[in-house]
């Protein structure tokens, strides 16, 4: 069953589009990795869905199906209604767990605030539920943790606390914006596992935003690659890592050395140039200037559509490349 259906999402800040016609949909309980380099528009897109951009024009729609069967458009809802949705149906966690917690309130005060807002719990009940939640996210001594201010916790513990606050309202959808980028690699693995087990337990869908394909591979069911504000590939994770169809995806995979296959090669495949700035995009494929498979036509003259190249049982694979068929051979 579809949880979220984003159609033609566009964001601009009065100039060229930063997020340009992004469409995708995700099923209930699915983990979708939104992958892209800086400037790809992945964070802007997610903040736009949350209504947290503060400024800018947002177009398109993002229909979220709530557990009670109602549907709500995350782009169109008013501020009052959004407050009822955020935290209860959609939550978000961010990259830097230290600055994401209020430095002058204890963990307990911050958790109780969320619990009273979304669950109507106060006093002893809120305290009990907070302990339960912290326990659920793998914090060993929840009572002690509640009395501390965030600075006294390690990075991994802080991110766990934030996850606990995000799931307090039992949301259907969690947006995670680079939640493990600031963490050490051993802690990162623990947090990724935690997110997977929370999904298994609650059936919560997740949009996981990252620039790191290896991390995406560790957790995602489905990978969506963004380039210069557009979706350029949307594929099941297995299919994607086995055979990416878009030349950009291939380059991205090749440029990041994995720890199993690095020795001996000694040079990494590279991409020339850089992501075009929003004002410097041509009419054709936005990746064309950097693409080895580029042909003057149609690559430079016409923007390729997002083509569905495989449409199995629940397994859509789409790519924005006019030459994908030739290249696949």
């Amino acid at each position, binding site marked *: 069953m579809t949880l979220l259906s984003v159609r033609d999402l566009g964001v601009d800040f009065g100039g060229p589009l930063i997020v340009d016609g992004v469409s995708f949909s995700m099923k209930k309980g699915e983990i979708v990795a939104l992958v892209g380099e800086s400037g790809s528009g992945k964070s802007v897109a997610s903040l736009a869905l949350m209504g947290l951009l503060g400024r800018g024009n947002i177009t398109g729609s993002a229909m979220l199906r709530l557990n009670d069967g109602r549907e709500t458009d995350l782009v169109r809802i008013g501020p009052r209604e959004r407050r009822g949705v955020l935290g209860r149906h959609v939550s978000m966690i961010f990259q830097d767990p230290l600055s994401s917690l209020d430095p002058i309130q204890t963990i307990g005060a911050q958790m109780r605030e969320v619990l009273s807002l979304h669950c109507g719990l106060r006093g002893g009940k809120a305290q009990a539920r907070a302990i339960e939640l912290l326990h659920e996210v*793998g914090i060993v001594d929840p009572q002690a943790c509640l009395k501390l201010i965030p600075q006294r916790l390690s990075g991994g513990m802080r991110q766990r606390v934030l996850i606990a606050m995000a799931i307090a309202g039992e949301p259907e959808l969690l947006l995670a914006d680079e939640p493990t980028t600031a963490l050490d690699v*051993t802690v990162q693995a623990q947090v990724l596992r935690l997110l997977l087990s929370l999904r*298994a337990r609650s059936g919560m869908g997740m949009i996981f935003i990252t620039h*790191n394909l290896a991390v995406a591979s560790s957790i995602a069911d489905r990978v969506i690659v963004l380039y210069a504000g557009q979706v350029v590939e949307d594929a099941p994770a297995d299919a994607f890592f086995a055979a990416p169809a878009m030349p950009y995806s291939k380059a991205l995979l090749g440029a990041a*050395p994995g720890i199993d296959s690095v*020795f001996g090669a000694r040079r*990494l495949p590279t991409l020339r140039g850089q992501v075009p700035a929003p004002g410097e995009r041509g009419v054709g494929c936005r990746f064309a200037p950097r693409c080895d498979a580029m042909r003057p036509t149609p690559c430079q003259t016409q923007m390729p559509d997002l083509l569905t190249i495989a449409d199995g049982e629940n397994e859509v694979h789409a790519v924005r490349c006019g030459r994908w068929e030739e290249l696949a051979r």
Partner: protein
Amino acid sequence: MTAPVLSVQGVSKTYTQRAGLFGRASRTYALRDVSFDLRAGEILGLVGESGSGKTTVGRIAMRLVEPSEGEIHLAGQDVTALSGAALRPMRRRIQLIFQDPSASLNPRQTIRQILRTPLRLRGITDDAEIVRMLAIIGMGAEALDRTPAMFSGGQRQRLSIARALLMNPDIIVADEAVSALDVCVQAQVVNLLLDLRDQFGLSILFIGHDLGVVGLISDRVGVMFRGSLVEIAPSRELFERPRHPYTARLLAAAPRQGGKLTPHAEVDAGRLFPTSTEGCAFAALCSHAITECRTTRPVMRETAPDHWTACRRADLDLRPTHC
């Protein structure tokens, strides 16, 4: 084997810290008894998590931070005690590349002024070398009259490398030099460093936290944990046959392309372990620890040819099991 270009011998660094304004002063180890050699023309990787002391090692090797104990030898000469005017000529032999491309170039100078600084300090007034160096890093002379703000992160990192190379150093310390870059740009800079090593015979101390990048670029890799160097070995050997439980854990935790995690929770999840001052720093987290591990510090010993491990239980088979 030729003499090492840089030799760090038994270096420790302690800080006296006051916890808050009212707190009592206490001594903490940022580094503890770290020893290694950087050989001529080699790239030595240093990996470790935040707070492991890898950055401090780099700064101490450059004499930007004073070691509390131990010695630093540069090309066979003890430079630990040098200071002021005596230190300055030694400084040019070892140069630093930083993590944050936005802070590593003076925002109020043009690229020409920035790149002239090393030449001026070497007593050279001719600009020809600057243009030559720009070509080496893949940039044109038109860059000279721009300010750092007009360049992307990757370009600034190249300029930072050019500035370091203009000192004509023997050694480069690259402190998380590619960590802040996007993956494609990161690949370009990694390749550039490898080219430069081949071209100039540089020795590079490459500090990083991404095991893939460090493993790719380095000939040997040292692993640090809470201020101690726990293992050092040729990179293939280290990655395929780690002998320190911490190295094994690090390797197991690294995310892999195409490798999926399973959602089981870990036992030691959200707990803070105190660093023990006695015994092995990793003992509290180690599933192989025996009583001795907690009471006496392990010493570095050669567990395989050129493979050094500071673990009493280095005989265990810790080949990474993929999860």
